[in-house]
């Protein structure tokens, strides 16, 4: 007796192939949807803003005359913000992840922390802005400085970094750790020499994606009361500064058409920054990725 009834299989075959095709098309459309929107966005800002994009645009201060306006202070300010936020959030985030994954015992308290970290990731950014305003700007008296904004932004992206780092640390195979312990290594040696190197691609990918979010945020920084027009650059982390997204937002809400084009040029610069940061993430991931 045959186990497979071939006439039945042939009868169903057509239907299965059609079903397969339908799903293929649906998923293809799903993929293209995002790409299409991105394409439209890129086309619009490139046609609108490319005209204003030149060296002067990068070197000039904001101005009421569109042809003289530039993003010098905003661009340098954004770089400063990344410079403060990146080390702060990575140190705190990876530290938290290491504690939770490697040291903390599984109990109610750890679960409580875990749930709260996940919840924090969903808190609207403007709430972090209000927190930063009361805590860093007012209570600690940091004013609208790079440090105050960097701390606020670190808080904002910490949950994402922690969760990404935890995932990365968890995905390091158990046998690597055990081998390390077996060779007589201490816990700390195992973490530094085995776990972290293996987890670093995942940690950095998550970290850079989170940082990309930080440099695109406007709302919390407006709440902090960051100025927009400043004619000087910060020299220390205690100086005040401004950032690119605030300038872009202001330009889009101006009545004059020329400012909308300037905003598009600003968006191009911001996108280039994001692409550079993301490429670094991809490079690092590819370079340090190990297969087990």
């Amino acid at each position, binding site marked *: 007796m045959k186990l497979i009834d071939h006439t039945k299989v042939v009868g169903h075959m057509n239907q299965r192939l059609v079903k397969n095709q339908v799903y293929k098309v649906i998923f293809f459309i799903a993929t293209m949807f995002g790409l299409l929107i991105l394409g439209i966005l890129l086309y619009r800002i490139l046609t609108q803003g490319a005209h204003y994009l030149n060296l002067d645009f990068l070197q000039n201060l904001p101005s009421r005359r569109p042809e003289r306006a530039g993003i010098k202070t905003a661009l340098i300010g954004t770089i400063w913000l990344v410079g403060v936020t990146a080390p702060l959030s990575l140190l705190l985030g990876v530290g938290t992840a290491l504690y939770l994954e490697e040291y903390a015992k599984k109990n109610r308290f750890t679960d409580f922390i875990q749930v709260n970290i996940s919840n924090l990731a969903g808190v609207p950014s403007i709430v972090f802005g209000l927190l930063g305003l009361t805590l860093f700007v007012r209570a600690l008296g940091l004013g609208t400085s790079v440090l105050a904004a960097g701390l606020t932004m670190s808080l904002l992206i910490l949950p994402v970094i922690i969760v990404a780092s935890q995932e990365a640390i968890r995905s390091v195979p158990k046998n690597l750790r055990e081998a390390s312990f077996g060779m007589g290594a201490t816990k700390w040696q195992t973490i530094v020499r085995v776990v972290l190197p293996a987890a670093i691609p995942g940690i950095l990918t998550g970290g850079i994606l989170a940082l990309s979010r930080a440099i695109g945020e406007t709302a919390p920084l407006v709440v902090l009361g960051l100025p927009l027009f400043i004619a000087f650059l910060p020299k220390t982390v205690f100086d005040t500064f401004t950032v690119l997204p605030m300038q872009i937002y202001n330009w889009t809400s101006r*009545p004059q058409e020329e400012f909308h084009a300037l905003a598009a040029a600003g968006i191009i610069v911001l996108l280039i920054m994001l692409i550079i940061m993301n490429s670094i993430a991809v490079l690092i991931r590819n370079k340090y990725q190990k297969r087990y």
Partner: protein
Amino acid sequence: MNRYKNLVITAIMSGLLVIATACGTGGTENAGKTTGAGEGNKQLSGEIKIDGSSTVYPIMEAVAEEYQMVQPDVRVSVGLSGTGGGFKAFIAGETDMSNASRPIKDEEKAQLEKKGIGYSEIRLAFDGLSVVVNKDNNWVDYLTIDELKKMWIEDGTTKKWSDIRKGWPDEEIKFYSPGTDSGTFDYFDEVILDDQPIVEKATLSEDDNILVQGVKGDKNGIAYFGFAYYLENKENVKIVPIDGGKGPVEPTNKTIESGEYAPLSRPLYTYVKNESVKRAEVYDYAKFLIENASVLAEDVGYVRLPKEEYQKDLETLEGLK
């Protein structure tokens, strides 16, 4: 392990690069400042912090930009946290000047008094709230204040043009209004709405350009926003003359400046901390501001005040020195 070391080195190097870029540019900026210092006759230095209304921001930006060329060593920073947010910082003593698109409220006055902060009001320019409809709207020739009230205040009914005035079409009105956080809304609320709720169906947006787009694409649309947005979109929308009791008046630079376009023209202010004016650079900046406000305000789409107003502002300032 070796790879890990490499990574650390890469990370440190890129960190240094970021700092180097930031510092490098900072250095050149510094050099530019010192060469500028030799040229002026009386070079001032110091820091002036300004925050407040985003409506007033373009004027302050223009003034700060021009002032930077005269006094490059004075570090002026202008924020745009909104009128209310600006006053909060002003009350906390963080700013020297606070821009506002409405007069200071009583509770804000009380808080300033409690903190012992003296302040003076400086009027900078006028903004005429412009009521606009779609280009194809051929029935609205003007609106009275009562008709505006009838339109914009929520009363539970669906508003139709025919309800407002006889002979107008039996079609639903589509409302577009600035968001409730804006000074523009505050002003409209004060003059037209009288603190009563705005029509529920109104589309609210913080970006006035969206209001323009809304009215442009909707035959039954009506919106109000700052005069500058109307000036930029004259081809896209139709302005509605407003009858404030003395016949319909269309907002123009002339009718707004003379006060004929009432009650929908509003003054824009900045509030300066009296104590700060004692500092030479703040006094100098405020003087520069008053002397140039008329030209610079019109440059960015607002309307100048009558000359006497600026004279009065100057006298106030001199009294504080």
